[in-house]
């Protein structure tokens, strides 16, 4: 997502996944994508996480939002690349999207949380924002399944609920590997 932080997310039922990282002209970026990306006229605003406030409590959303903003600010990131599989024809697509934060002071986040927690919560925040961008979500809920906590969402264009998996990692290009474990 930001610098060397990466987020992967997928929705298995409809077989699309997204990968986010800071736009770059360096060799690493080119080796990962090996393709051109489109510049989207859409933008992601961290404050848009409030779109989920019908279904998730304010304190939960606030914690996710501030973690995402902390990392976005730390790495001075104002746009990201999203790579995803298009539902219409299954082809891959990479798009560049501008990102903006609320401009709040975020330095204290690092003191109140561990670095690992920040990356994980930021990952969820960015995963939800990107999901909202690609397929507007009208319902989300969490269920306890065995040892895990499963996030399900319902998009406006489908009657079927889908499982949403998000992970954040500092190891380049390893997010999707973690999800497939």
């Amino acid at each position: 997502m930001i610098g060397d932080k990466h987020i992967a997310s997928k929705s298995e039922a409809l077989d699309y996944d997204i990968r986010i990282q800071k736009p770059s002209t360096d060799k690493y970026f080119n080796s990962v994508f090996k393709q051109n990306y489109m510049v989207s006229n859409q933008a992601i605003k961290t404050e848009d996480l409030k779109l989920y406030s019908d279904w998730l409590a304010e304190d939960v959303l606030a914690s996710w939002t501030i973690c995402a903003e902390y990392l976005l600010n730390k790495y001075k990131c104002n746009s990201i690349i999203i790579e995803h599989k298009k539902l219409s024809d299954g082809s891959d697509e990479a798009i560049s999207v501008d990102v903006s934060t609320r401009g709040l002071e975020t330095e204290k986040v690092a003191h109140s949380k561990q670095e690992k927690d920040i990356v994980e919560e930021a990952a969820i925040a960015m995963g939800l924002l990107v999901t909202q961008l690609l397929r507007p979500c009208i319902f989300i809920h969490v269920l306890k399944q065995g040892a895990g906590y499963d996030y399900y969402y319902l998009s406006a264009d489908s009657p079927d609920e889908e499982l949403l998996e998000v992970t954040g990692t500092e190891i380049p290009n390893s997010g999707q590997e973690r999800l497939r474990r």
Partner: protein
Amino acid sequence: MNAMMLENAQMKNLVKAISSNLIRAQNEERNEKDSSLRNSFLDMAGYDSVFLAKLLLEINDSVESSRYFLSAAFSYEKSGALNQSLACFNKIKEIGEEAFITDAEEGISRINSIKKEQLDITTREGKLSALDYLIWKHYGLTTTDAKSYMEKEFGQDLTNDSIRAHAKKLEERKRVIIWGGPQGREYHIYPNIADLATRSQHYGRTSLFAGSIQDRVTKEFRIRFENLDYNKEIFILNSSIKPKMIMAVDMNAFVKNLRVFTTPNFSLKALGVLRKSRDLENNGYKPMLSDELDLVDSDTLFNGLTDETIYNRATCGGT
């Protein structure tokens, strides 16, 4: 996903509370030293999940209902609320949706195989689980009983204050109901049966039920005075208990506490045997209610706010 969840305000609020508490619990998974906060969130999520599952069952959505009962079962199992978890798994079997039966049977088998020796009683949560285990095993304990059993069965010499603090924590998590206290007075601690996913495993057992008086429904019973020693007034205990329960009180209790029984939503606790409403037929009270409801056949009543005893059959000689 049930379409009602998108529209119905009560269901929306429950979904939001459940999801948020599960996320909070997930965040607390990282705290390996103390699981009490995580378990509190899991218990809250489990409680709300059971309530939502019951609402879904009322609108005949057995699939979505089973999904939430299963989530509640896993939440409770993880927090150590084993009786609540077991009731959820049993309820899934009662509903009978094929897709959930295997999970339910595995869950029942898993919980039944847990031995009390597996509890880590060196931790606060372990002591809480041990007390929970004893209360459900003995179907109600006083502070003194609990202290004695903790020593006998777990080798733990806890003070009365410590027992009371643990019991209060269990009550906050809605696993037990307490009558008595405060300070030096004995606590009488009972399993919270009313809020279980299913009460089917507990008929015929005596426990404490907390609620408020909603309606007098004696007229919903066709009465044949064959058993003159059995003279009851019958009330809906509380509309927020799902499925709702009725409470039979002795005529003596009714007559001596007319103000209580005519005050809308008067809060009380009833100690009595859990039965089905049709069981009253044996005593000449044939239910004409549209649903078969669970019944607490009370012999002792307490003011729900002050815990003052307002009726005791043994001392009032009532029927």
